[in-house]
């Protein structure tokens, strides 16, 4: 049976939260729907669980890679052409530390950005059912269900105070 998507649009956060409760009562699970907003709402405003993610691992990995590359570059280039300048050692720790620090931070930041995009489930080439009113203050609840439950989902959302409910094949 083809999966269908239903999108309900709500004017207030209270109505959207009520709709999520009613959907659960009607037998839909939290994994079946997503609440879409144009603004960050406080965590749990729509009864959602805190997201599980591994974002904090990304900067550590990036930092380790950045540090390794920085040490390789600084040590490798100076050993390749060991010219003494200013009476300093060929492998001067203070000088290497500066570049190693910058390399570490650059690696950490780049990997953090990659982590944020990855953990946010982006990029998303296919938008799915969506409505531009979401970025104008409406709260959307996008639900995926089987064909035979489409009417039930539509009814639950309207009863919870949805301003508009639309559906589409996905």
């Amino acid at each position, binding site marked *: 049976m083809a999966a269908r998507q239903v999108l309900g649009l709500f004017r207030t956060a209270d109505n959207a939260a009520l709709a999520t409760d009613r959907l659960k009562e009607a037998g839909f699970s939290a994994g079946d729907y*997503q609440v879409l*907003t144009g603004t960050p709402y406080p965590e749990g405003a729509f009864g959602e669980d805190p997201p599980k993610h591994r974002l904090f691992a990304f900067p550590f990995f990036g930092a380790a890679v950045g540090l390794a590359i920085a040490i390789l570059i600084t040590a490798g280039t100076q050993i390749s052409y060991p010219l003494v300048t200013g009476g300093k050692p060929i492998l001067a720790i203070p000088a290497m530390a500066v570049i190693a620090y910058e390399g570490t931070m650059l690696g950490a930041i780049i990997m953090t950005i990659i982590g944020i995009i990855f953990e946010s489930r982006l990029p998303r080439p296919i938008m799915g059912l969506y409505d531009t009113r979401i*970025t*104008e203050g409406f709260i959307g609840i996008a639900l995926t269900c089987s064909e035979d439950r489409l009417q039930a989902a539509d009814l639950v959302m309207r009863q919870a105070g949805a301003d508009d409910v639309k559906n589409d094949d996905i």
Partner: protein
Amino acid sequence: MQDQLIIGANTQEVDAKINRDLLGHIIAPSPQWFWPLIGFLALVVAMAAGAAGFMINQGIGVTGLHRPVMWGFFITNFVFWVGISHAGVMLSAILRLAQAEWRRPATRAAEIVTVFSLMTAVLMPILHTGRPWRVLYWAFPYDFARGIWPNVRSPLVWDPSAINTYLTSSILFVYIALIPDFAVLRDRSTGIRHMIYSVLALGWRGYPRQWRLQMIAGILLSALILPVFVSVHSIVSWDFAVAQSVEGWHSTIFAPYFVIGAVHSGVSAVVTVLIILRYMFNWGDYITRDTLDSLARLLVVVATAWFYFFATEVLFGLFTLETPEIGLRTMQIFQWPFAMLFLIFITTAYFIPVPMWLFRNVRRSFKWMLITTILVNIGMWLERFLIVVPGLARKSPLTFNWSTYHPSVIEILIVVGTFAFVSMMILLFSKVAPLIPIYDVKEGQILRDTIKIGKVEVPAVRREE
């Protein structure tokens, strides 16, 4: 606290007004002054580019640089723009970490000032080398064929590594925070613009996981960028402090002194930019007197901390009774024309603005804040000039010919061009992305409230623990 945008309005009305106000200039035709102003700035930039081209063709003999003063306007301007760039991400990062409510309208503009001023700063040493095409292998280890490697023991190699890290981080930081705003633009644009904004928004839908990660990203990236920001101007200060030939620069407090000076000039620049943007785009509902008041209070603290470092550097340098230090300070403070520049610097960077900022009426006045913050940056540009030029111009042993420094027209044109370039780039950016973060302002509206205490109603903000 920002005033409520529409009293008693529902979320849709508030969001529609915010979208209209902050995206109007992007989606609808620009104000009449916009393109003529861009044209004028482009003309100044073109003149500077012409001057730079002439200099590259003729050699740096066309500048006023002469032994022993081999650093002049370009290096002064480099330190100045690196300093300006510090405000942006620093301001944004610290205020995000502190969850300061008044940060909301200021962060994006601050971050954009960082990006464009840093790009401008990078140009200065590249031009200063006189042979820009050689810069790449002085800074990056890529010339495997000839075995030419950068000298990593030189601070002139530390600079590119720090600036590269800071610039890359700042651009990525700005982009991540822009994704939800690109989604708003995607939803309100058509045709090719819609396609471009769709790609930039990466398919953002705005579900709780994405918002949660966006919030964590703001804090995590702030925490990561703050140490980078401190390192960048520290490294710029080491360009001076570890230079063997100029004893007057051998100072162990140069790094924190430069960093705090950068914050002083940078935050002032952000205030200047915010006031000008407010006037240009009618953003009176967003950049309010409260925003200005908070920034001015921050500036009082930063400026005083900077003055403490400045006074320590000068007084305890003199207390050593070392000849180079006394010679340098004598030249800076008592010899023409540096004495006049020193007087302008110290009055405009501290003694005029800071006492004025102690008055509430000044802190809440757009006119006075604009004037005082511009004064600060005149002073801080001169501060950098007074570090660079007198330090080199002082007679030192084994220097057998010396003269002072007079900037040439070429250098003046290039320096003026950098100011036009940064202004032009900020204005052009305002045409493609909002300079005030839309989702941040909307979130502020959701979380704001008023509570009644006794007989008064006071503004309040709800916040998650």
